[in-house]
């Protein structure tokens, strides 16, 4: 067991695992790593349990120093990785000697890199999860300089050998398969038909709560009035009064009062949404 010292926290780096689903009825968001495939890969590459906690960076990486020798890996958004100033592999387990600094650099494409350490980040779990929930404030605080993070004991599984896979390329546009409902009938038929032909852009005000869109035609309400707050799911596409769709990500509120025009199913599309930079074109396609 060891601990990590945060040398440079980066723009927004949080501890994330699989989150705390199952507590929505108490007003607790699910939270958890946004790019679920990159998160799972990071733990697999280190022989960690699939629910071990890792760090999720935002655009400009993080720098850490280990108190004792450990093994780390960086997945998700591709970025330069250095140990004691020397370039090391991205996407492959590398040894981090005691006292050496791991520098995870700015994402070359995508948004969020995942930094895993063998044994996992071992901060105290809250309701079964170590995830930082930026909406409700549950879980450990956002990383800050000088903070230390405990690392858990390495499990029985060995660090696997090479696990060859392609570097994820940033898609030129974000395609989101959308299943209409439950409140598609709150919008005019013409604006719904137009949704499938429209191109939006990822708004810079997007965050872990939701991917906001801009630049596309606003959806037009077919009815007046307010919707009483109702339960929201991951991937729900909520339409606030400005008519521009918001795709709910892991830190989304458990209830909401704006109509949901459709839902993007969990999996590759939401993983891609987690890596889509502001300005990326967004299109909604009919889910099969």
């Amino acid at each position, binding site marked *: 067991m060891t601990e990590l010292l945060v040398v440079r926290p980066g723009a927004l780096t949080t501890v994330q695992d699989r989150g705390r*689903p*199952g*507590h*929505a*009825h*108490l*007003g*607790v968001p699910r939270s958890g790593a946004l790019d679920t495939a990159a998160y799972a890969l990071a733990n697999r590459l280190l022989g960690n349990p699939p629910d071990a906690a890792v760090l999720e960076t935002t655009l400009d990486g993080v720098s850490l120093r280990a108190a004792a020798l450990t093994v780390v890996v960086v997945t998700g958004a591709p970025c330069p990785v250095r140990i004691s100033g020397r370039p090391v592999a991205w996407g492959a387990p590398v040894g981090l000697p005691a006292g050496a600094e791991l520098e995870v650099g700015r994402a070359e494409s995508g948004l969020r890199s995942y930094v895993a350490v063998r044994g996992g980040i071992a901060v105290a779990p*809250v*309701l079964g999860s170590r995830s930082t929930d930026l909406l*409700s404030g*549950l879980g450990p605080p956002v990383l800050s300089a000088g903070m230390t993070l405990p690392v858990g004991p390495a499990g029985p599984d060995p660090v696997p050998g090479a696990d060859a896979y392609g570097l994820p390329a940033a898609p030129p546009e974000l395609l989101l398969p959308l*299943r209409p*409902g*439950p*409140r598609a009938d709150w919008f005019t038929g013409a604006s719904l038909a137009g949704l499938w032909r429209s191109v939006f852009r990822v708004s810079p005000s997007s965050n872990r709560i939701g991917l906001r869109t801009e630049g596309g035609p606003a959806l037009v309400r077919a009815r007046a009035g307010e919707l*009483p*707050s*109702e*339960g*929201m*799911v991951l*991937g*729900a596409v909520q339409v606030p009064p400005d008519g521009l769709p918001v795709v709910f990500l892991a830190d989304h*509120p*458990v*209830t909401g009062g704006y109509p*949901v025009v*459709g*839902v*993007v*199913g*969990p999996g590759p599309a939401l993983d891609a949404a987690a890596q889509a930079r502001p300005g990326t074109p967004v299109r909604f396609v009919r*889910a099969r």
Partner: protein
Amino acid sequence: MRTLVVGSQALLIELDSADEVAALHAELLRRRDAGALGPVRDLVPAARTVLLDGVRDPAALGARIARWEVPPLTSGEGPLVTVPVRYDGPDLAEVARLWGVGPGEVPGIVGATLFRVAFCGFAPGFGYLTGLPERLHVPRRDTPRTAVPAGSLALAGEYAGVYPRSSPGGWQLIGSTDAVLWDPAREPAALFAPGVRVRFTEAGRD
């Protein structure tokens, strides 16, 4: 009752009243506890709906639920929590005025009401409590406060609630309690979970 499919893994059931929501929620809990509902990850009641998230075949489940005979809720159903309150809220006089009573009568009116946690939201452990008759519903404040102290007993519209932690809020504050509404290290973490019945007593007058 109207059932709406939400994506590939969830079902939203829409009802006509808060009472129907409470009755269906209780029936869902009964069937889930009896192992007769099938896998459901989240069961989320709200104002006029219940969301079932993490289910296998939402359309088939919706068709099944639509055929249920759901008995109305009885006032004795659900765990009962008693919360001592000091009636020292800054909006106590305003609420009394809206109710057409003196401020000294508010504790008795609230104390005589059996509340029920209809649903949670806004913040972990923040329960929306129903039970006040319509003539006692009060509007939100015109200007929300930037910081409402933790433990504040507040009213807005058809709901009463207690702030689990300090947060901004626009509800009318009538009192305060030392009860810990939310503690993630405690089991249960939320004092006010959906379906719990709540009585407010006047602190120091037990």
